[in-house]
């Protein structure tokens, strides 16, 4: 493989695309598959075959299109027509799309639109009516989804730019969308120092939640001494309600892989591990396929792009422990040990996997790398706020009209996310709080809706950016209940190594149970708060240190609810 081969593959892909007048993209992410996307796609395939349109209509599996609550989603691309988006597709409605839209589209007499004339619609004399002129039968109009919804227009997609538009299982499709050009550029035009400098200049910060400057981390590992070094991608996402990483891995596995290979070049590593949680079988399958095809194309293995740089990537699958998202526990798990964290420092950059210097980033962080190298650090630094650059993916869930996966520029306000992108609260209820950062984060009440979403602002409010889970609660939610829910999660997920987390989470949960059952006393609240501080300052790893956050943050903004429970019972 050399850089010119990428262009050749792109041309071949475009030619193949041109042979089909029509493409139907079917979301095949876990969310849409769970809501019946497989059956809808089968229905579509049957209908296309029935009408003998296989040669004209290409059916493509893609990753997430975003609006998961309205899935299964499909997108119809017909040459000379604006794209059409469909929601809640079934086998029947897919049949209808073919019967009522595709068949007339391919009928003789279709007047080519201007755009079609340009692309040479004389090749297709049988085209009849424009899709928008086709009268839809009863029911199908309900499946149309306007693309000018704020849900789509208010987003800014960098990491998810290709999600929902390419087939994640075909490396050629990724290459045709500009894939692996950033790697080619890094390997053939830039030194490792320059790559690190570019990432540092972009202002990119870790997307796993803590927000450590990525370029700085890369430089630490680059400068660390060691005969071998490792690169790890952390795909062990586990916050309740969060599925950004899963979706990214399912929708665009090659972008993560490319980011990792570039990172390997930049820090001088020879080997990379993709750590994916075991509950993500679709992501694992697609990543495995991505790795295989990258090897086949010579993008992994020896002498990539004819340079002296060689890189290997393996997948490691988690066994269902939330704590393995913590970097030292993750590395223990990769080594085959029990997944428990250890004291930091030493940080992985000095002493990581098998005691070698190790770069460990979240998969979303790697997803940003190609765009930064392709578009330039200055472009990236122009997006977002002063200290938080670029975009962030959020899994928008809870009491919202539109839930799904969104990518927004840093600095957007919570109000815009909730009321414009999310479409507000259903059932005429009031917004009460948004929870970010899962069990390590906190809630943000209505009076802070206009806070810009960036690392510092969320921290100042007692929450964290986190990995991107954003759960919205309405006025029917009890905040002590929310705190109890997250504490129960921490009880289940504590690894049991250090005493404060192992015993403290259980104690805090017991106290919350007592309080929410209306059997608590003021002294219990006092004890709870004291325990929170203790666990925060003495726990061994981030899980324990942050486990009290949901309690402390709900106590900070909704203390009256706790007081009422203590005063009145329930």
């Amino acid at each position, binding site marked *: 493989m050399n850089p010119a081969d990428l262009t050749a593959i792109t041309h071949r892909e475009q030619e193949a695309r041109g042979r089909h007048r029509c493409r139907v993209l079917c979301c095949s992410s876990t969310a849409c598959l769970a809501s019946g996307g497989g059956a809808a796609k089968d229905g579509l395939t049957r209908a296309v075959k029935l009408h003998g349109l296989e040669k004209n209509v290409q059916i493509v599996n893609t990753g997430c299109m975003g609006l998961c609550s309205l899935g299964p989603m499909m997108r119809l691309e017909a040459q000379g027509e604006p794209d059409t988006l469909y929601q809640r597709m079934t086998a029947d409605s897919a049949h209808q799309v073919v019967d009522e839209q595709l068949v007339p589209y391919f009928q003789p007499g279709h007047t080519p639109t201007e755009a079609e004339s340009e692309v040479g619609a004389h090749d297709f004399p049988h085209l009849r009516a424009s899709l928008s002129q086709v009268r839809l039968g009863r029911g199908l109009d309900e499946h149309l989804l306007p693309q000018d919804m704020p849900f789509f227009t208010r987003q800014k997609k960098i990491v998810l730019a290709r999600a929902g538009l390419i087939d994640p299982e075909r490396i050629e499709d990724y290459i045709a969308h500009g894939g692996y050009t950033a790697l080619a550029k890094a390997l053939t035009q830039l030194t490792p120092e320059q790559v690190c400098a570019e990432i540092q200049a972009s202002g990119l910060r870790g997307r796993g939640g803590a927000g450590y400057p990525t370029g700085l981390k890369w430089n630490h590992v680059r400068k660390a001494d060691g005969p071998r070094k490792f690169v790890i991608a952390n795909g062990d996402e586990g916050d309740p309600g969060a599925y950004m990483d899963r979706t990214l891995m399912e929708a665009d596995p090659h972008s993560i892989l490319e980011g990792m290979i570039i990172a390997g070049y930049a820090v001088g590593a020879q080997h990379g591990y993709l750590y994916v949680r075991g509950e993500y079988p679709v992501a694992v399958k697609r990543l495995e396929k991505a790795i295989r095809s990258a090897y086949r194309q010579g993008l992994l293995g020896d002498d990539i792009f004819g340079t002296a740089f060689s890189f290997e990537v393996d997948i490691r699958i988690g066994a269902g*422990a939330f704590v393995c998202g913590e970097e030292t526990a993750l590395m223990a798990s990769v080594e085959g040990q*029990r997944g428990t964290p*250890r*004291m930091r420092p030493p940080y992985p950059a000095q002493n990581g996997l098998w005691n070698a210097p190790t770069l460990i980033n979240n998969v979303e962080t790697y997803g940003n790398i190609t765009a930064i190298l392709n578009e330039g650090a200055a472009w990236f630094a122009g997006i977002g706020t002063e200290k938080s650059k670029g975009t962030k993916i959020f899994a928008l869930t809870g009491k919202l009209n539109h839930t799904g996966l969104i990518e927004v520029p840093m600095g957007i306000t919570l109000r815009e996310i909730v009321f414009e992108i999310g479409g507000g609260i259903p059932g005429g209820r009031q917004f009460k709080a948004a929870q970010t950062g899962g069990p390590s984060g906190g809630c943000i009440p209505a009076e802070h809706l206009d806070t810009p979403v960036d690392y510092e602002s969320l921290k100042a409010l007692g929450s964290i950016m986190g990995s991107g889970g954003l759960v919205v609660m309405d006025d029917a939610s009890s905040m002590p209940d929310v705190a109890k829910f997250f504490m129960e999660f921490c*009880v*289940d*997920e*504590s*690894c*049991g*190594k*250090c*005493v*404060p987390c*192992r*015993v*403290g*989470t*259980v*104690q805090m949960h*017991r*106290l919350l149970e*007592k309080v929410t059952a209306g059997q608590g006393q003021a002294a219990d609240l006092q*004890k709870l708060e*004291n*325990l929170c501080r*203790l666990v*925060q*300052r*003495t*726990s*061994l790893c981030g899980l324990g*240190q942050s486990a009290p956050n949901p309690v402390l943050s709900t106590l900070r903004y909704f203390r009256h609810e706790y007081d009422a429970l203590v005063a009145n019972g329930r």
Partner: protein
Amino acid sequence: MADVTLTIDGQPVTVPAGTTLLKAAAQLGTAIPTICYHEHCTANGLCRMCVVEVEGQRLLQPACLVPAAEGLRVQTRSERVARSRRTIGEMLAASVDLSQAPELQAQLADYGADPERFPEAERRARPVIDDNPMYVRDYAKCILCWRCVQVCAEDAQYTFALSFDGRGYNTQIGTFFEKPLPETACVFCGQCVGVCPTNALKPKREWLLEQGQTPDEIMAQTRSGRRRKRG
């Protein structure tokens, strides 16, 4: 290695770089309480009893792991530290039977811990495992210091008979698939019994004596056992 000078509780002390705060404090005669730490085991800093205040650090730091560094200012018994140790002791007392852990009892008393402060916890009540002639395992007394697992593995014996089971509050030391010890790699070296701080692991003879058996009765049992084996 170069020496570094740091201040512990206001007193300057010079130690080789890399010395832990625990050892540096010991050099000054300051004892920092520890539970999981053992001279001959890899320190894990997991009991959090030895946490100290290091100036400039948001969180308390485990003295058994943190290396001394030039100019470090450490407080081994600040208000925050004392409160943390007291609560950690109280939480341990609430979850484990510490009746045969005199060192721990002394620490609890030293910090004024109230063992009844957390009445909501359920004690870990496990039956005593008596599956071999050498020692019994009473995990109701286990505080999970990890020492037995470590001496069974790379800290001493390289036998790897002991391991972990479960997680979080339900973590327990055990054997693979809960097999009786004679069916594991265990060679009955006794290292684990030697490092156990709470008497959760106890020589069988001692245990039988506690059960009220006389030395003669115990000897009779072993004699008949040996005869059975020979016959």
